[in-house]
């Protein structure tokens, strides 16, 4: 996408620069070529491709049914994230850190206690807002065990810059011990 954009930019700049070259041969100034060709057909073709690409990728990002999916509630407030999920012995609440198993899809249900916040872990998925009175569900999945940083991506007041959290993706053993109530 970036390369395509750069190519279009170069094309427009080149056309612009060439307009200033000293007059020589007869110039092509037909409305058909410039406006219909350049202004109508050219962008339409590119946009159609982009749109199709966007829809296909967007479709793939859409949560699908998967029996191994686990569900977590993320509760945002000013300026704290609290995560809750079922463990072996009742709900486990973890402030500031989201524990997930690596390699399994996770549905994060977003809630807010006050203003709008947005859940965003750049390396795991896009972002989604937590809106008062509404429930949004975001599907994330970590390929590898490890630590990922997440942050609030919707301006929420004075503490917005520090409104972050961590995601810890466990391997199988780590996940089992987390669910057993260890850490």
């Amino acid at each position: 996408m970036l390369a395509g954009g750069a190519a279009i930019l170069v094309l427009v700049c080149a056309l612009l620069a060439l307009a200033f070259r000293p007059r020589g041969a007869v110039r092509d100034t037909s409305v058909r070529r410039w406006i219909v060709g350049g202004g109508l057909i050219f962008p339409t073709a590119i946009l159609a491709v982009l749109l199709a690409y966007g829809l296909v990728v967007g479709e793939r990002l859409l949560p699908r049914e998967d029996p191994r999916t686990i569900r977590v509630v993320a509760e945002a407030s000013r300026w704290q994230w609290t995560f809750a999920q079922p463990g072996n012995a009742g709900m486990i609440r973890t402030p500031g850190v989201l524990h997930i198993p690596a390699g399994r899809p996770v549905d994060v249900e977003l809630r807010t206690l006050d203003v709008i916040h947005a859940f965003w872990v750049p390396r795991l998925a896009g972002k989604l807002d937590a809106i008062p009175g509404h429930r949004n569900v975001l599907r994330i999945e970590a390929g590898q065990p490890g630590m990922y940083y997440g942050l609030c991506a919707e301006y929420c007041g004075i503490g917005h810059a520090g409104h972050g959290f961590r995601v810890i993706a466990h391997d199988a053993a780590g996940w089992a011990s987390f669910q057993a109530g260890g850490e």
Partner: protein
Amino acid sequence: MTQALRLHRAFERIWGTPRGWRGTLSTVNHSTLGVRLMVTAFAFFLIGGVLAMLIRAQLATPGSAFAGPDIYNQLFTMHGSIMMFLFAIPMFEGFAIYMLPKMLGARDLAFPRMTAYGWWCYLFGGSLLLIAMVLGVAPDAGWFMYTPLSSKPYSPGINSDFWLLGITFVEISAIVTAVDIVVSILKLRAPGMSLDRMPLFAWYMLVTAMMMLIGFPPLILGSILLELERAFGWPFFDAERGGDSLLWQHLFWLFGHPEVYIIFLPAAGVVSTILPVMARTRILGYGWIVGAILALGFLSFGLWVHHMFTVGIPHMALAFFSAASTLVAIPTGVQIFAWLGTLWAGRPQMKLPMLYLVGFFVTFVMGGLTGVMVAVVPFDWQAHDTAFVTAHLHYVLFGGFVFPMLAATYYWLGHVTGRQYSYTLGKAAFWLIFIGFHLTFFLMHIVGLLGQPRRIDTYPADIGWTGYNLLSSVGGFVTAIGFGLFVIDLLLQFFHAPRTRRNPWGAGTLEWAMMLPPPSYNIASLPQVDDREPLEAAPDLALSLARGEGYLAEPRNNWRETLAVETASGRIDHIVVLPGNTLLPLWTALVTGAFFVLMLLGLYAWAPVPLIGVAALGWRWAWVQGGKQPFGKLPIGFGDEACVHAEVQGSPGWWGNVFFLSANGTFFGSLLFGYAFLWTIAPNWPPPELLTPSVPILAIGVAGAAVAALFGRRVRALKGPVAGLAALFVALIATVWLLAPSPTSHAYGAVLAVLLGYGALHVALAILIGMFVVRRRGAGYVAATLGAEPRIARLWIDYALATGATALIGAHMPALLA
């Protein structure tokens, strides 16, 4: 004494502004007011620029202690709000106010007093925001003021009230100016200037102003609702009590997305005007460009949801809006290629305005490309609310608006000052601004992709963003130095440069067919236009017009005369006699301001007083117009004759009311949308308690509306319809008062109160207008017997009965069905 000098003195006596403070306060001249608007807007640009520098100073280093988060939040909120509401929109409005009558071959705009009122409202509303900033209580919830962050519980201070009231005050100015511009373009043109001979800039402004009439009412509605929630606890946006913060987002972006095109289109109009002159040719594909402007205006309203891709919208809807968002790239592409083709067709010269246009091209195309990226949904999930978006938005706004306006400054400055450009600072300023801008914002794309969010006052040092941010800030200061040079350059030209020739660039449009700087009446006589570029065929047009060889060349009765034409054909329709200088606009703006100040201070009980004052001033405003003596057909030159506007049905006043009511209808439509949206989408519905339906009250109201609708239509009788409206009024008030649940307990009651209140207010206004015309008839005013006033009253009566009945029925129906 030559003929030209004699005419000049005679017209100057009629149109001129007296010296001294009284003249300054009472002038309604469009050139003066246009320049005032532009100067005020530029002052706000400098203030917004200083705020930008403070932002960049804060972000230059990690962990900066320059400003705390509370101050920083005020900084970027004020920067964004000032740039969008107090700089960009008033700047192009001022430019259009100054330029349109000149390009169209008219002597002033259609509603000179409204022009003045608009400027005063803008000045006062903008000052409110500056006062907030000086007092350290500036708005701090971001320029789009998302609820519930901006609601009372999370913004308890007065900060958000300053935003809601100040911006609404300024929006009043935007609405009246838009009506002024639309009617002027449609009606006040030189004879023979049919729509397809209109300069492209007028087309751009026509569409822009119409978009303002559709786009601004949702924002005004949103602001009023939020202020009602903050002031009286009516829970429109509070999810606990049946409100929904998403309603604010819809109303805001219904305005906010078209807003970007509203800002871009006038600038594109500037490009389409200057570029062919620089290339010494005509624009390529006039018809295609007009089509592209119309398409852009239309499509931009399908896009608002594109700012809400991350709120959780159904996938199909997302696909639709994603497609619509990318679709706007096509009319934009048509324009870009029309400009490129024009350059290829002509022999372009790299004069100073052209240099700035090149800056526009490069920057704007990059902004457009990143815009298409943001419109692709999966990408937006990643880029939304990062520095990438900040960068994109500045490429579009700065590239698409600031560069063309700089080009316009250098192109038309001689027109305003009457002096010729003779320095080289402008070039140095260009390179500083261009390089500084790209340094600042190109890097912000990169840190955005690295994950830096927008609207953060600080960031950790170990995350790899420091170098980019530091360089970006350096770029910001280079830009600022560039603007410093630009200001010095302007001052030099104002005070030092030699006088200019007429038409220094060899342009073909009518604004160059006059003395420079232009006299108060623009042209001593109106030309007959039979070409898109009248000056090309008749290079000496300026002289012949000054000698009076056109229409309306003889001053008469001390009237400020200009011609109105039939909209499409440009055939002469009637003579418009414009009002002269008056203090009424200033007084009305002051009383309007008193309302906003009382609201701000929380003196709600007193707030209705200035509203009554505005109604009284409005009465006077209309009363002082026109006279009691009919004139019939009057000679206008070349053996033609025409009536004055007071004696015709399609006067500018009629058209102005049509467009004002269209904007008003959008407001009402947005309100109905809000009602339906809350009912279907918001949490905690249906409400615990519905309205108590009353068939008799409903019947009285509907019967009243029917009487108002059916009586007196043919003979333009007004008393019957007014009586019908009175019954409707009673029914509306009785419904709010006796039947509706309390507006504070649930959003349902709150919406009903606003809906019924809106109906009652408009019914009352229509009654007032009906009574006004009855009085005028009795007093023997021509406009109320032969002219358009009864027709205008009828228009208001129809509007009021339609909206009033809709409100009444809409409030009763769900309860009756339940």
